[in-house]
């Protein structure tokens, strides 16, 4: 069961702040981040990578995107 960060409908920098807080909290593992704009998708990807996390999957759905980020 992955941890979900629901940042849908929130604008910059909230999605990044929420993702980084979760990364800080769990240190490693898998997080699914839900966002609704391409800008948020790019910003969250960039922020995760800057923390040494991989963007394992990006899924497009009705509400926007589901990003799966991972760190072993």
């Amino acid at each position: 069961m992955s941890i979900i960060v629901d940042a849908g409908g929130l604008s910059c920098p909230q999605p990044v702040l929420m993702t980084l807080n979760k990364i800080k909290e769990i240190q490693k593992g898998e997080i699914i981040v839900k966002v609704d704009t391409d800008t948020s998708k790019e910003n969250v990807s960039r922020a995760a990578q800057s923390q040494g996390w991989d963007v394992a999957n990006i899924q497009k759905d009705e509400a926007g995107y589901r990003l799966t980020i991972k760190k072993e």
Partner: protein
Amino acid sequence: MAKFKNFFATRWGIIGVGAFIGVIAALLQKLGNPGNMGICVACFERDIAGAIGFHRAGVVQYMRPEIIGFVLGSLIAAYIFKEFRPRTGSAPVVRFVLGVFAMIGALVFLGCPWRALLRFAAGDGNAIFGLLGLIGGIWIGTLFLKGGYNLGRVQKTYTSVGWLLPLTMLGFLILMIIFPQIKGEAKSGILFYSVKGPGMMHASLIISLLVGLAIGFAAQRSRFCTMGAFRDLILFKQTHLFLGLLALVTLAFITNLIVGQFHPGFVKQPVAHTMQIWNFGGMVVAGLAFALAGGCPGRQLFLAGEGDGDAAVFVLGMIVGAGFAHNFGLASSPKGVGPHGIAAVIIGLLVCLFIGFTMRKK
């Protein structure tokens, strides 16, 4: 998977867009735009407010096609790349008020962040105080963001909601074509046109519009934002947007040197004053308002173009704010701050602090 398909959103993409804006803005001055004001989103929205008579400051009335182009260029880019997402509902009234005070603060300094950078790149030392104020205001904003400040989620909405501001801009363009400027006349039909001062200085309609469209397109793709540049640097130590800002300053500086527009000093700078405390203070208010609203004035136009109805409300707030600024004597002039400019800065700061302190989620 993690590779971006969008070149503009890469490091070189944002640097390219910043460089493009820097060069074009410096050249627009050569083509007729006011001194160190090749592009100024706040000043140009203020000129639009003047053109439609929201204020009667005769020297700053012109329907700036650059602003129209910014919104429509972003709309075109958003549609081509399937990023147009009509959305609204994240505390629009707060965004309106932030827009009003962002404009008032910017007009005490005499410029938006873009113009602050362009003034700096042309040797105007007063801009340093404005930029320091901008950074200070954004820094206060990051403290609120860290403390949980949040205006809430947007909702998806009708496509036509996202179209309202672009259509308004299109309407402005049509008005400008129906009532074109008549040399020496202060009014053409229902539109006001400055016959002296910065409002009289402009590149041709077609050049201004094309430049606006190109910048709107590129900025939508790259997410170029001057407030975000400092915010991300302070909040996340992230340099992505900041590189775009550096490219803008550097290329504007080089272009100014080449075309002979670099004049270092503090006094007699074009459309600028030397009351440094208020250059600083005005931009603290503006910077804080931009940070609380999530984007610099340029970025708000590009967001409005891609369907963000709340950004559109911020833009309308800025245009109305320009009316307050000039009708109430809040805006500065080359002689210094307006009769009530100082009071406006203090009230603006209090309003922004009220918003920052009271709108947070646990």
